[in-house]
């Protein structure tokens, strides 16, 4: 615990920080301060995370037994749809850019705010309005199409609240577009003097790559939702097979967004992990430029591979070959990143506080998730395992094992900056280890279930699958406990925690040059941009101790 330096707070840290700038509700709801908007997002995404998590709990309880248990068939269909819709569109996609991204992007580049603070606030309201519509449809009776909304089930056959949910996703999508737009413009125009492109922290680069996808993919999803709504409300369907409409075209539109969206969900996580690993290995990141190219490469090539979701859909076999080939390509930059993180540890001076444990957990789980992606990219194996639990396991390894680990790592890393308080590192490390174990316990059995052939979205299943399902559900109990823990020690830290100094980890980013919590306008004095990013010197620090 020596590395969490409990420095005496500066006066700037006590007075006039962004948290104390106003205590009325209005001072929060009408704020244009990116840091306060980030706090608003933390509140809303946390709410969505636990709603989605509650649905996941119901799913795992139902799957303890092969027969229908606590849920009816329709009930189960509504619950897994709710889980998918909330987690994907209202938690995973917005969470890191809008919380940590919003808070840190201007700080990291030495700016006073994002380029369009009002639009920034607007995007929070859009995401809230979208979420409210989705939650309304949940309360009104739910939606049972799965988060993928495949036509003609969603457009003609489903009797559930598809329209409201689709409208919610449409609205929230524009929140996402507004955030992406803001970030791109901010990074282009508001970098501090001396903050050249190749001195940017990789978290900023990852936000840039993410914003690119948000801008160019989200509108297609928005239009796809419009088409579903038009078909349900006005009967002017372009996917209706009776009129010659092609449901496979819908899938092209949907996955043109939804595959790149996976990268919206994982790229910022990669950025966070890079910040954490460099800081606690006390080393410059290995191959900075390659890390940048890999981020941008993933963002661009990520648009070329959506057809690998459609190998058995009736898509042309030749198209499937092309998409399979491109999917193998997109794995290359991801592999580069894993190698670079590993190489960064070499000759470092490594410590293991909670953020570092989350980051190392991320590398492991992401590697496993990424490698199982190769199974899905290769045609014959995909034909067997697609639409089974293998896919479920694969994307949870990326989305939950990867992204959520990175999110927790980032929250722990920047918590002292955001709140100005320290938390109990031992509790946090315990939660990190528990999360890693619980996660593997929950999702590894699903790979085996998938290859055995258990289809997804089954509330009842043949008894030969039970053993693995019971294991998975048992793991979920551990995972749930691990997710609840931070609520406790973060709350304790916020109320009674020790004050954090401006730079408790002795890190190099500009965000650590200002007080914790930062003043309203971010910097009292213009921040000094170091010559090279991640200017750490292993060995020198320990000599100083």
């Amino acid at each position, binding site marked *: 615990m020596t590395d969490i330096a409990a420095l005496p707070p500066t006066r700037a840290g006590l007075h006039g920080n962004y948290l104390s700038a106003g205590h009325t509700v209005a001072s929060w709801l009408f704020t244009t301060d990116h840091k306060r908007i980030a706090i608003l997002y933390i509140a809303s995404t946390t709410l969505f995370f636990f709603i989605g998590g509650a649905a996941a709990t119901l799913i795992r309880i139902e799957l303890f037994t092969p027969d229908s248990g606590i849920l009816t068939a329709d009930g189960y269909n509504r619950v897994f749809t709710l889980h998918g819709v909330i987690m994907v569109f209202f938690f995973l996609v917005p969470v890191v850019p809008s919380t940590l991204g919003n808070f840190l992007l201007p700080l990291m580049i030495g700016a006073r705010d994002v380029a369009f603070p009002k639009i920034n606030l607007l995007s929070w309201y859009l995401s809230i309005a979208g979420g409210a519509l989705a939650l309304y449809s949940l309360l009104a009776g739910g939606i049972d199409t799965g988060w993928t909304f495949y036509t003609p089930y969603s457009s003609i056959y489903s009797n559930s609240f598809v329209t409201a949910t689709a409208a919610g996703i449409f609205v929230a999508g524009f929140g996402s577009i507004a955030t992406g737009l803001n970030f791109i413009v901010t990074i282009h125009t508001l970098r501090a003097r001396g903050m050249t492109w190749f001195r940017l922290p990789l978290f900023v680069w990852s936000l840039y790559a993410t914003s690119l996808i948000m801008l160019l993919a989200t509108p297609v999803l928005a239009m796809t939702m419009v088409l579903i709504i038009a078909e349900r409300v006005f009967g002017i369907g372009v996917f209706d097979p009776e009129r010659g409409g092609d449901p*496979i075209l819908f899938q*092209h539109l949907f996955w*043109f967004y939804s595959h790149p969206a996976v990268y919206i969900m994982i790229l910022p996580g990669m950025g966070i992990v890079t910040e954490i690993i460099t800081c606690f290995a006390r080393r410059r990141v290995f191959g900075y430029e390659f890390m940048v190219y890999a981020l941008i490469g993933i963002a661009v090539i990520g648009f070329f591979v959506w*057809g690998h979701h*459609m190998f058995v859909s009736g898509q*042309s076999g030749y*198209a499937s070959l092309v*998409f399979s080939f491109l999917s193998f390509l997109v794995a290359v930059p991801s592999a580069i990143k894993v190698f670079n993180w590993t190489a960064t540890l070499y000759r470092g001076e490594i410590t293991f506080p909670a953020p570092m444990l989350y980051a190392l957990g991320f590398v492991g789980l992401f590697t496993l998730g990424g490698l199982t992606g190769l199974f899905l990219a290769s045609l014959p194996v995909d034909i067997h395992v697609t639409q089974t639990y293998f896919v479920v396991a694969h994307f949870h390894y990326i989305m939950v094992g990867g992204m959520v680990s990175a999110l927790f790592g980032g929250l722990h890393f920047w918590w002292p900056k955001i709140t100005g308080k320290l938390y109990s590192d031992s509790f946090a490390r315990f939660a990190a280890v528990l999360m890693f174990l619980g996660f593997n316990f929950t999702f590894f059995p699903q790979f085996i279930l998938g290859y055995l052939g258990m289809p997804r979205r089954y509330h009842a299943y043949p008894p030969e699958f039970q053993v693995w399902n019971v294991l998975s559900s048992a793991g979920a109990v551990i995972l749930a406990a691990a997710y609840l823990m931070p609520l406790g020690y973060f709350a304790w830290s916020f109320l009674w925690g020790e004050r954090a100094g401006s730079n408790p980890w002795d890190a190099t980013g500009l965000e650590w040059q200002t007080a914790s919590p930062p003043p309203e306008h971010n910097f009292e004095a213009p921040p000094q941009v170091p010559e090279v990013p991640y200017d750490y010197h292993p060995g020198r620090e320990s000599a100083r101790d």
Partner: protein
Amino acid sequence: MKALFRKSALLPEVAAWVGLLVLMVVSLVSSYVPLGLGNGIANLAIAGVQMLVVVFVLMHLKEGGALPRLAAAAGAFWLAIFFTLTFSDFLTR
């Protein structure tokens, strides 16, 4: 005030407008001439030229910096990806 109404000052916009209308009429008339597949191609080619006129003359893209051009190019490039890969399916079924 006077400078504003000098022909040279207004010329680009007015010329672009005349050009756009002429192109529209050409497109309309050509669509009544039986050209088979040529009709659609001609119509779209003319629309493409009209778009370039609007973008470069009326929207002043040629005067703007590199970034607006990059943004416009990104939109076009991603749309091209969308078309190409979607049609890689439909053309080979």
